[in-house]
């Protein structure tokens, strides 16, 4: 990196310079090497595009993108940007179209992102028009490669990114298949505007250490304690992870009491415990599985509460977190009702997730004026290997391993 000023101390992954959450030059390089680099970025669900002409607008990093199904049943993705003057092509979040036409000068594009029409291309009454040498085929918004895995639509600007299954690796694929093994239905969409750099949120997702310390709900109701059976899987690249656990009353132990933690306290009980009643739907006993894919995708199963989350940077200290709540298409009314109740755990007002919305902002404000200092990420050692215990920051280090690889940051400085 030519603009480099950020010092990464040592070859290890246990220190993260605070400047990576605030530095503008870093953010520009990130857009190019991470989001438009050799990564697969979550775009939407295939059920979001039910028929030929169905489209959704989304983003890869900060780059606006259209995802659309054509009549051939294939899904295409391209920049939401007119080749002429750069205006957005699609203004709505979703809809159905025959083709896309820029409102500015009426240049039009087919559903595969090809420029097919230039208004007054031959001029008017023999005057004006584009030069004869102008070739529409040579112009158009940049197209993305598209891959669909288990109903998740991913896109990549890179020609070098490996096929999606290879990118994810066997273990991550299996863990996605575990949840998305049958057709899903969207039951709600909500966006949370987070007052922090996007990396603070994706670190938080990978941080199994904080979960039962910050979130009293998890601890008190035995949803997730570090003493429960479970583990953390980190893939070889480091960028993807799975944290999972099983509710097991027999695993309750005194470790939280001994630490005198705020999050363990006995007075608080639910008057209406149906919010946590739930039903068994996976035969492996796993009641919580949080899975992330580098850079900004999360698949969540907390009890019967299913959702995908898309993390998008909207500036150095702003992040858009898009929640899509899911049920299965074959849910009974009772099962669907249960999911609606359990959604109280997550999202902007979630008994668990509201805190994740806040802590990133606490860090962002806390590190102001401390750009030369660094965070400590040393819980559970200095490696990025999978772990049975969850009092570890192994998957946070994994994120930085993948991030540094994409950014071309070696052991020393950025």
């Amino acid at each position, binding site marked *: 990196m030519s603009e480099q000023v950020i010092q990464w101390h040592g070859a290890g992954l246990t220190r993260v310079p605070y400047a990576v959450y605030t530095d503008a030059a870093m953010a520009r390089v990130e857009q190019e090497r991470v989001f438009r680099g050799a990564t697969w970025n979550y775009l939407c669900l295939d059920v979001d595009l039910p028929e030929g002409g169905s489209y959704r607008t989304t983003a890869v990093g900060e780059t606006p993108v259209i995802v659309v199904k054509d009549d051939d049943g294939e899904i295409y993705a391209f920049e939401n940007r007119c080749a002429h003057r750069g205006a957005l092509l699609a203004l709505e*979040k979703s809809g159905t179209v025959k083709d896309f036409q820029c409102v500015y000068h009426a240049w039009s594009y087919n559903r595969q992102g090809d420029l097919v029409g230039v208004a007054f291309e031959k001029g008017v009454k023999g005057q004006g028009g584009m030069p004869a040498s102008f070739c529409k085929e040579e112009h158009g918004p940049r197209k993305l490669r598209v891959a669909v895995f288990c109903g998740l639509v991913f896109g990549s600007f890179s020609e070098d990114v490996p096929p999606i299954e290879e990118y994810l690796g066997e273990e991550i694929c299996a863990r996605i298949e575990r949840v998305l093994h049958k057709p899903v239905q*969207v*039951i*709600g*969409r*909500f*966006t*949370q*505007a*987070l*007052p922090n750099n996007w990396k603070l949120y994706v670190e938080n997702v990978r941080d199994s250490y904080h979960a039962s310390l*910050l979130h*009293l*709900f998890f601890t*008190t109701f035995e949803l997730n304690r570090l003493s429960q059976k479970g583990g953390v899987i980190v893939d070889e690249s480091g960028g993807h992870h799975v944290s999972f656990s099983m509710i097991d009353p027999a695993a309750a132990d005194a470790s939280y009491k001994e630490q005198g933690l705020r999050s363990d*306290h006995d*007075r*608080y009980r*639910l*008057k*209406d415990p*149906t*919010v946590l009643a739930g039903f068994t739907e996976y035969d492996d006993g796993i009641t919580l599985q949080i899975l992330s894919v580098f850079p900004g995708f999360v698949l969540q199963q907390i009890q019967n509460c299913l959702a995908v989350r898309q993390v998008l940077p909207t500036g150095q200290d702003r992040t*858009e977190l898009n929640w899509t*709540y899911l049920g299965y298409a074959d849910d009974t009314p009772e099962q*669907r009702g249960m*999911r*609606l*109740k359990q*959604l*109280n755990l997550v*999202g*902007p*007002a*979630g*008994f668990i997730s*509201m*805190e994740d*919305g*806040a*802590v990133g*902002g606490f860090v962002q404000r806390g590190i102001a004026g401390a750009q030369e200092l660094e965070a400590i990420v040393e819980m559970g050692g200095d490696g990025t290997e999978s772990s049975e215990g969850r009092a570890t920051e192994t998957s946070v280090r994994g994120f930085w391993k993948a991030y540094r690889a994409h950014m071309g940051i070696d052991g020393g400085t950025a």
Partner: protein
Amino acid sequence: MIDLLRLCAFNAAYAQAIDNDELERWPSFFAERCLYRITNVENEREGLPAGIVYADSRAMLEDRIAALREANIYERQRYRHLLGIPVVASADAGGAVATTPFLVARIMATGETMVFASGEYRDRFVLAGDQLLLAERVAVCDSTVTDTLLALPL
């Protein structure tokens, strides 16, 4: 008989309980079996049933207040509700159906005030004895985006 003035007075008292940080009183505005949900216009338009808050009993509302007081971590904040005049779809001796626009400003611990939410309550009121109660309140927010988090009820 439920009339417009009575609905206005009910809403004013409801807003006051929240804005004055008397959150423990908030569930008492609801019937024991009730529906309280916060959603947005896009979900409503598409018929998507999920809420960012979803409660189907007064006890769940009490649990939410207990969680806010005892469990959840969020910066100190308060609201100021400005409620419009209800549009009454129907009203008789037993109940009423009405919609009421709201604007909620959020005042943060830092002293900053921002418009946090606008939208409308879609309500179904019932009379229990002489007491007016909400059998259903769906807060449909105009924006699909929530800034940072929603802790206090709308």
